[in-house]
């Protein structure tokens, strides 16, 4: 479970996130939607401790990120929006690095890494340097890295960008499997079709504030329309 309590973040005069409170329950896929510059990535970066909130507190499975960051960090895995990271490492080195950081049992980690690499179809590329990977392959290795330590909370920033249809499907399956196991999956996306199909619950963020939280059905009832998420989203963010 991820809980945000009145968090705010300013960059100079720009208020990127404004007094935002949100609770993401276990066992669901939660989508964070919003136009460009709405504050989605800043919110995810605060949840993953890349940025510090100016105000408020964040709890990962009831552990305060401010008070005990080490313990809180063990409870989530994160896929950033840009997968161009650790380019100087080989795929296998990156996974071993993650295994060492999270103290995963050697056999369990190895088995899981091989299984996931096979599932995402990059097992044959693990001996290559990440710099030689395509964008999609880099995205896949980041996703495998996130899943390797079986975190209770999965946080994914635009995870579907650049994935081929097969991997796209695999990731959707994995997210669903994790949600069914009672874990929390939080993702931000621009692709409203995806959000409509896979998210159990949504939050729409605009100008740093949450303007809607609930299911798609609840959004439709609120607007009294039976339109697509795209139409409802455009209406909401225009107001």
């Amino acid at each position, binding site marked *: 479970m991820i809980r945000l309590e009145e968090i705010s973040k300013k960059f100079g005069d720009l208020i990127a996130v404004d007094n935002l409170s949100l609770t993401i329950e276990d066992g669901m896929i939660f989508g964070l939607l919003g136009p460009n510059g709405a504050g989605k990535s800043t919110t995810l970066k605060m949840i993953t401790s890349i940025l510090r909130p100016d105000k408020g507190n964040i709890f990962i499975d009831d552990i305060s990120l401010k008070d005990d960051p080490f313990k809180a960090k063990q409870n989530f895995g994160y896929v950033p929006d840009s997968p161009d990271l650790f380019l*100087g490492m080989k795929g296998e080195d990156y996974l071993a690095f993650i295994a060492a950081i999270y103290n995963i049992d050697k056999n369990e980690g190895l088995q899981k890494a091989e299984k996931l690499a096979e599932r995402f179809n990059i097992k044959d590329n693990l001996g290559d340097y990440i710099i030689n990977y395509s964008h999609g392959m880099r995205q896949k290795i980041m996703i495998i890295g996130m899943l390797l330590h079986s975190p209770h909370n999965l946080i994914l920033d635009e995870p579907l960008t650049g994935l081929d249809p097969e991997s796209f499907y695999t990731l959707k399956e994995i997210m669903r499997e994790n949600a069914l196991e009672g874990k929390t999956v939080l993702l931000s996306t621009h692709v409203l079709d995806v959000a409509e199909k896979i998210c159990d619950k949504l939050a729409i963020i605009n100008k740093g504030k949450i303007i809607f939280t609930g299911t798609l059905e609840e959004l439709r009832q609120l607007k009294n329309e039976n339109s697509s998420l795209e139409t409802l989203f455009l209406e909401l963010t225009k107001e």
Partner: protein
Amino acid sequence: MKRFLSILKATYYSSLSISFSKRQKKMRNPFIPQLISGLILVFYFAFLFYESASNLGKLNISNQSIFEYVDIYFTCIIFFGLFMSIAISPSIYFYKGDEAFLPLPIKGRELFLAKYLINIYYSFIYGGTSLLALSIITCISFNLPFYCYIIGILASIIETLLLSFISFIVALFFSIFIHFKTSKVALSLYSTIFALIGVLGFIFSIFFSIEGNDITSIENSIHTIYSNLTFINWIAYIPSKVILVNSPIDLQFVGYGLIVLVVIGIITFLLADKFYLTSLYSTSSHHKKKKASHIDKVFSLAMKYPFLFFIRREFYSLSRNSQLFISSLIYSIIMLISGISLLSFFAFSQELALPKNILFIVVFALVLTASLQPYLSYISLPLEGKSFYLIKTMPFKSSSYIFSKIAFGFIYTGLINIILFSVFLPLLSFDIYTIILSIPFSIVYSFSSNLLYLLISIFFSHFDYNNPIEILQKGWGNAIVIIANYLFPALSLITIITFSLFLPNMLYLAVVIDIVFYLGIDILLYFLVKKSFSYLLNKDVTI
């Protein structure tokens, strides 16, 4: 012209990769820190040169001062030549901005010339200004007439251009074969090495080409300069050490240099027009060969010996950044060679038999300076680049992370220390206690220097760059490292000098005191680094 200026401007901005400060809401231009770093170097070399040049200005010129004079100027040229080969060679075809130029209707020579001019700008900031300062100081020291200043300025410009042209030609030539290779990093590494060999070959061919007694000819030529008569009798059309040494005040060098420049310039641009864009296209499309995975072995190492795994990671991280890797290697090689040659000079010279206590100071000063390799520890943190993003989200134990960075730097610097001490202390007939004590001293001293540079990098690290060489170009951190580089050995030398002068029979005690002193610094710095790193993990990082 307008078109070329636009290309030049775009290339300049792509080379700067100016960072955007979210707090200040304005673009940060690295020009001022670059200028200051350049000026520090200029003043440092100018100070060294002025001392030896002023000695030469006196009537009784000794062989030793001529030796110094040649050496300082020569060292400047070597440093500068190395810088050119490291910085230029990969930059001509591995800038990220290149991909944006490829779809545009731009000729190879236009882009090449733009890059060349940008590199010249950086070369003058980082090295050319030193040569310029040396030329002017030569004129002042020898009381030369005004026209010699103009010749000196022209000579330093020509030297800058000549050295950079060589790096360019080698890199360009190498890039013709680019499509046979698969890895950009490997290509970058090979071309840098080749450029390096080219520049060094050029410099050494000048240095060693003259026949006869070098010192005598240089002495004669300097007498001639001092008498303000005609310039030296240089061997026509054959570059020699005499020409190089006298270049700041030699009109014939300027003429000779101009002819060479024009010829090399024409060849370079003809080659560039023919091959440059083809090479760029090749670098933007590389084929991939799958390499066999050894995931079980890598996992075993990571789980059984995580510390070794992290050190291995540091090595790979550095080796994948060829410019930084080569520059750190070159720094050590130069320091080792100059240290060894100077100490050998003292060890075998009959004329310069120094007293033991003075030798003690010289040995320590040289070894301590030679072993300083600030870049390894200073760059290891910012080298993480955007990956530091993800590291911040992980449950990192800062001690293991810090230790791996320091240990990697220590393996490098500590070894140089130990090798130099164990070769030279017995050779110079120092007692066994001093020789044995030098080993723990090397260890604690190397730890201290590595910890200090890591601490500086924690406060001044930038993680947003296009080319890792920018780590050494951006911000104030590099300037602070350069200053610290000269101050840090001074702490130890105070004890060494005090004992050498006042207690020459208890020299080993100076080493013991230094061991205790640096051990204290090690402990203090370690806690400071640990605390600061935790602070860095929790603070916002602009990426």
